[in-house]
């Protein structure tokens, strides 16, 4: 049976019946069914798939999709103060222009010969991230920051041969879930609670955990899940190293125009998510992860992901590219390689590279300064709203911050009332606690509007 005989679709040129027939004749086959001879009748689907009728024309499809899109209200249409791992930043037009080029968008695993541009663009991404992170090795992007953290910790575990992972700063529950799942066969994760007053790492408690021994890695997030850039980040390095553990820091790369990179305060492995570097929010679909280390063989050997390297060609004055230490990977060694590698998020690396090149050192410094100032201003404004407490007063915050509602209303109620006023924000982190986020896209007036709205709502 050839059910699709008269279905000629623009995406399927050889579905034209006469073409099909001519091809079959040339092969010497009676029908397409001949090619399925190895699929037993007992496991055939003897009916058409039960799917909706196709929207065959582009016009019909567009109309259908338009109806669905109309049921979304985006952060362009309203004022949004949502962050918590996905950030609303301005995406420069040139970034979109480059990543939407067919040559990049539709390429895949080409060789350095027909895909030289992809290799160079990704090597340059690695190089610009290396400048930002003050290291020499950064990988081609992995899926996201969660995966990067899990892999960084497994790398630390293989280097030290130890079992325990200690989390020293406040960590996002979903990120912790991903890390726990990923390191489970080899590592136990202990979250050391932060000091409830300061929101910062509890050094005494960490010290006690380290004294128990067998620690592969101390992990910190900068900023933490509370939005805090912990002043004890350098001290954590000393404690980790004193116990023979590696220090792994997850960081937001957009902070690094103004804040010290993890390597500057002792991190052995830095990791994180590049979504803030020119990648759209896309309902949480725009994340991509990085891992960064010094150029030490014992560390480089533990990367599971691709590392592109610069290499000479047979012609002097040409830059060639290729995979560094390919034999590390599961591509080369299957289960004997390090973890696994497959299609991940390379195009986001190209986009982030364009973003960093556009921003340059001054742009990165200015955006960092602006976000720090906006965050501090928003915290001050909200602290003045009756019924709101803004905890962790002195701690440095970047983009994300938390508040407590003391007026009796719940975070969920306040969030709903904000939405009524055309404002997205107040992600509940507890019954009477919530997270907000400000970036460079917000103006003073936006923040004032949020404070005014909350003043009407919270009590």
């Amino acid at each position, binding site marked *: 049976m050839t059910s699709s005989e008269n279905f000629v679709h623009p*995406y*399927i040129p*050889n*579905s034209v019946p006469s073409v099909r027939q001519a*091809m079959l004749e040339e092969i010497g086959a009676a029908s397409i069914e001949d090619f399925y001879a190895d*699929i037993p009748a007992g*496991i*055939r689907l003897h009916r*058409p*798939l039960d799917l909706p009728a*196709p929207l*065959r024309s582009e016009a019909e*499809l567009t109309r259908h999709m338009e109806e669905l*899109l*109309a049921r*979304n*209200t985006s*952060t362009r249409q309203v004022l*949004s103060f949502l962050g918590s791992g*996905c950030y609303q930043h301005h995406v420069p037009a*040139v970034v979109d222009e480059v990543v939407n*080029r*067919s*040559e*990049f*968008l539709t390429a*895949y695993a*080409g060789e350095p*010969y027909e*895909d030289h*541009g*992809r290799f160079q*663009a*990704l090597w*340059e991404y690695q190089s610009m991230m290396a400048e930002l992170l003050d290291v*020499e*090795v950064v990988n081609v992007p992995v*899926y996201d920051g969660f995966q990067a953290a899990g892999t960084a910790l497994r790398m630390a575990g293989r280097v030290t041969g130890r079992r325990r992972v200690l989390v020293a700063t406040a960590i996002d529950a*979903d990120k912790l879930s*991903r890390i726990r799942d990923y390191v489970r066969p080899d590592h136990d994760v202990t979250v050391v609670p932060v000091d409830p007053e300061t929101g910062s790492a509890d050094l005494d408690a960490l010290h006690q955990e380290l004294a128990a021994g067998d620690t592969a890695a101390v992990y910190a997030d900068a900023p933490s899940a509370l939005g805090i850039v912990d002043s004890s980040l350098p001290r954590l390095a000393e404690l980790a190293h004193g116990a023979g553990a590696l220090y792994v820091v997850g960081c937001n790369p957009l902070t690094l125009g103004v*804040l010290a990179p993890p390597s*500057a305060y002792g991190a052995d492995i830095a990791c994180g998510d590049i979504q803030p570097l020119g990648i759209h929010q896309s*309902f949480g*679909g725009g994340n991509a992860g990085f891992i960064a280390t010094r150029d030490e063989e014992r560390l480089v050997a533990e990367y599971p992901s691709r590392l592109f*390297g610069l290499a000479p*060609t*047979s012609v002097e004055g040409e830059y060639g590219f290729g995979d560094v*230490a390919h034999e590390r990977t599961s591509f080369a060694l299957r289960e004997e390689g390090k973890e*696994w590698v497959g299609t991940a998020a*390379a195009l986001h690396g190209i986009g982030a*590279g364009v973003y960093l*090149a*556009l921003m340059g*050192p001054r742009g990165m410094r200015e955006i960092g*300064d*602006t976000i720090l100032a906006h965050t501090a*201003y928003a915290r001050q404004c909200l602290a003045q709203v009756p019924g709101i407490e803004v905890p962790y007063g002195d701690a*440095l915050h970047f983009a994300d911050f938390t508040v407590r509602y003391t007026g009796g209303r719940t975070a969920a109620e306040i969030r709903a009332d904000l939405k009524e006023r055309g404002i*997205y924000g107040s992600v509940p982190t507890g019954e009477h606690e919530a997270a907000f986020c400000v970036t460079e*896209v917000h103006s003073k007036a936006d923040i004032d509007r949020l404070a005014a709205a909350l003043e009407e709502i919270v009590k």
Partner: protein
Amino acid sequence: MTAHHAPAPVSPEDARIAPKPRLRRFQQASWDEKLIFELGSPGERGVLVPAPDPSIAPVEIPPTLRRAAPPALPEMSQQQVLRHYLRLSQENLGADLNIDVGQGTCTMKYSPKVNDQFVRDPRIAALHPLQDEDTVQGVLGIIHSLELLLKEISGMDRVSLQPAAGSAAIYTNVAMIRAYFAARGELEQRDEVITTIFSHPSNAACAKTAGFKVITLHPDADGYPDIEALKAAVGPRTAALLITNPEDTGIYNPRIEEFVRIVHEAGGLCSYDQANANGILGITRAREAGFDLCHFNLHKTFSTPHACGGPAAGACAVREELAPYLPRPTVEFDGERYRLDDDRPESIGKMRPFYGVVPNLVRAYAWIMSLGAEGLRSAAETAVLNNNYLLHKVRQIPGVSVPYAQGRPRVEQVRYSWQKLHEDTGLHSEDIGLRAADFGTHYWTSHHPYLVPEPMTLEPTESYTRDDLDEYAAILAEIAREAYESPDTVRTAPHRSTIHRVRPETLDDPATWAVSWRAYRRKILGGAAR
């Protein structure tokens, strides 16, 4: 202004416009483009950033947390950045530009442009994942509907679209298998996963990463996974079989039900790697073959662009008894409203931030909706026709053979061997790939290990015309002719690419590998200035 001359008479012979040659003349762009660090000059700006209102005070950063010196990023004006990247894009051969059948096992098909428009719309691109559910009913509806479509396409009971890619979906399935046996108290006993040597390396690697011991089945004399080896491997330690069908050789294992039965009888689960599903859409499903779990690569089978190696997207489909372990949250629909369900106590947890690679979920949904049941079947049948047509053409080229399962058809792709050509000429499959670049097309050998010597895997999919397939076969025939008649042409290829042959030695030596500009400057240039 040039003087105006009356045209001289032209003879018909002089005016003859010769037809194009049989084989395309191609020259890839070669801009001899500098590295980005060699461009620009201090002070140039590519983009300006909003400054805080003057009334907002700047923040003092504690000295230990302040960056000591600015990052040494390039400083370039906007057009220079754009030009640099557009030159690099011209030095890259996307699937939109070439007959991309040479990346077998990866299902390079057309990604409709209209689908890209949907994901660039701010009502997808500017949605935040923590918005109120009422404000994202459209995208939640798309995710939920895509789950239902894949449920029917696989025959399984429940689908998660959270995995970030095909390998992430393989890992997700292994994590669910682990959770399933842990819940039954059998995990210590069941610590082995069985896979096959022709399956993607990620099957073996994900199982190992999740803590399982890996047993690899090799093919029997006909190239089918060896059923005797399976019987010898299976037992009370077996947690699962991870298998692809058709395998990357293009051969469909007709005893797949028996494989599944043997593993089930030993108490193990069966997970179907459906990376090669394109040729069997609507023909046979994971359900009918008895599998407990399967996964799809949405960027392959369902036509989302491959994006230089991602972002991709994966889908996991499972039977009811495994549904409790699916990643959280799930998308639920009560008949009126979509919502996210995070309250799933037995879930393996989060596989990635939020809900999946949403732009690719939107594209895959649009692709399936534009084809329907009839169209999916047409895609599968046409892909299989194209594959066997190309097989028929390539088989006639001197030096090529088609190992295993003689006389049997192939499904979605074929793993060929250039062993004969290698023995005759000394040239390798890789040399052929480098020469193929001179004709404006991409060619990849195959995954390691090379069980098939001097391998080449071609997968034409449904997207290419008969002319395209004829052209690709003619390119291979031309390269084979050159290999026998003027082997140096092939040995020294590429000749018309952006660059010439890379000397890879430096990439494996810690003293010379250069993963970044600063490593290159330190190790190779010896710290020399630009």
